[in-house]
């Protein structure tokens, strides 16, 4: 048996293969990393519209009378500010000062939430949720294998999708959702995404995925819509300074160090909140920053970050050539003293120290 046969598939895996996508194993799934050209796919999303199959993402429903209390303790952001139909970016702190996963919290009501989690963490997250839930007694229902997720992203996404739904999309604010029909299929229509380019994410049943995929492409034809792979998804999110779990945040990083103080609300107790409050009050010793290379080269995950004399002071967590900016950009942890915009740091690339400048995130406004 080859590795490919062990990988999980999405409802659209064969569609991607038929389109000639380059497939790679990602989080245990056989996923398209690119179709024709990463830079082309990147620009399509920034300038018009592109579609990602991100059906590997996990969807977990939390219901019952204890749902609110459970989610409020499980996650670092403040669920009390959510209203029905709103979405919130958050993270689940572990007991060791790090992050189990980052996630989106969808509120249907105070007795029904959908948590959208990273594919690579589904098993870990579920085990963690059940452990925390021992003190709450909410109902936890993993629906990950039953949902397909299409991220239709870019400034023209709304115009394309509006052609195939009767739901009025323009009244749906950023980080809000509604239930409706797309091309006649039941869908959760969510004004969210991981590209910073605008657009919607459409959660549909696996059986409807191909119908919706085809309808979106037909509707988007006039906008030169194209399918986009995980490669472009990564360059798009990095230009916006969005964290990627397993790279910029993980089981050992505090959200305070990661610049996620804005989703870490100490007006309510959450799991291990005292630990992160202490980091905040004592000021973190290291911080996740963005930087731009001035010397020629490209930073990659795990490359050392150094001071001018070559002393290692941190590590690159994400890096790429930014297709929009035409510059090499990266994120990584540095000592707090060097975290201010304008600080000079060096990235060690194949034995050479490349001069870099700490830059305010996002790289692309």
């Amino acid at each position, binding site marked *: 048996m080859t590795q490919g046969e062990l990988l999980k598939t999405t409802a659209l895996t064969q569609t991607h293969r038929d389109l000639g996508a380059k497939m790679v194993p990602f989080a245990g799934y056989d996923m398209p*990393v*690119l179709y024709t*050209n*990463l*830079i082309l796919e990147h620009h399509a999303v920034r300038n018009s519209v592109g579609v990602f199959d991100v059906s590997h993402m996990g969807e977990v429903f939390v219901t019952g009378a204890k749902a609110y209390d459970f989610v409020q303790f499980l996650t670092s952001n403040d669920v009390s500010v959510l209203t029905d139909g709103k979405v919130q970016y958050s993270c689940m702190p572990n007991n060791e000062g790090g992050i189990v996963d980052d996630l989106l919290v969808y509120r249907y009501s105070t007795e029904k939430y959908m948590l959208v989690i990273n594919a690579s963490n589904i098993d870990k997250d579920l085990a963690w949720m059940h452990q925390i839930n021992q003190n709450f007694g909410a109902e936890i229902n993993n629906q990950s294998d039953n949902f397909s997720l299409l991220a239709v992203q870019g400034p023209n996404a709304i115009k394309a999708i509006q052609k195939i739904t009767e739901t009025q999309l323009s009244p749906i604010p950023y980080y809000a959702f509604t239930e409706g029909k797309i091309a006649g299929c039941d869908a959760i229509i969510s004004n969210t995404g991981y590209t910073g380019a605008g657009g919607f994410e459409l959660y549909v049943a696996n059986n409807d995925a191909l119908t919706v995929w085809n309808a979106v492409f037909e509707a988007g034809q006039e906008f030169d819509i194209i399918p986009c792979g995980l*490669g472009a998804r*990564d*360059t798009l999110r990095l230009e916006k300074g969005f964290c990627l779990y397993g790279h910029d945040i993980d089981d050992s990083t505090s959200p305070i160090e990661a610049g996620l103080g804005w989703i870490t609300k100490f007006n309510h107790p959450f799991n291990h909140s005292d630990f992160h409050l202490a980091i905040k009050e004592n000021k973190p010793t290291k911080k996740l920053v963005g930087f731009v290379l001035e010397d*020629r*080269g*490209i930073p*990659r995950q795990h490359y050392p970050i150094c001071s001018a004399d070559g002393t290692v002071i941190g590590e690159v967590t994400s890096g*790429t*050539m930014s*297709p929009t900016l035409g510059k090499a950009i990266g994120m990584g942890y540095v000592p707090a003293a060097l975290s201010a915009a304008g600080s000079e740091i060096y990235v060690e690339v*194949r034995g050479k120290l490349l001069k870099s400048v700490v830059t305010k995130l996002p790289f692309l406004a």
Partner: protein
Amino acid sequence: MNFPENLKYTKDHEWILVEGDEAKIGITEFAQGELGDIVFVDISSEGETLQSEEVFGSVEAVKTVSELYMPVSGEILEVNPHLENAPETVNSDPYGMGWMVRVKLSDTDQIEGLMSAEQYREMVGA
């Protein structure tokens, strides 16, 4: 996929075009396709004499970086100056304008140990 008959190939996906005791070296059409959009060709070994299979530089694509290996031993005479500002040429014309280095061969007999176009095609299954 195109693998010209007049070139020799390595398992690391370099090609070599021998002209007397000199040769040009680049990466194959298969290699450029696997790498994707090439954004930087980093070769600082000009003037050095390197052994077969030693690293002579790196090629950076958007998503990945790959090292470049000498197919045979030789001295790096020249790095393709065109790639400084147009690294994407390696994608568009890997066997032509996208060549990477010109070398002086230390031992022309080493060429015989490399793969033919047919052998390379079989290796990559293309």
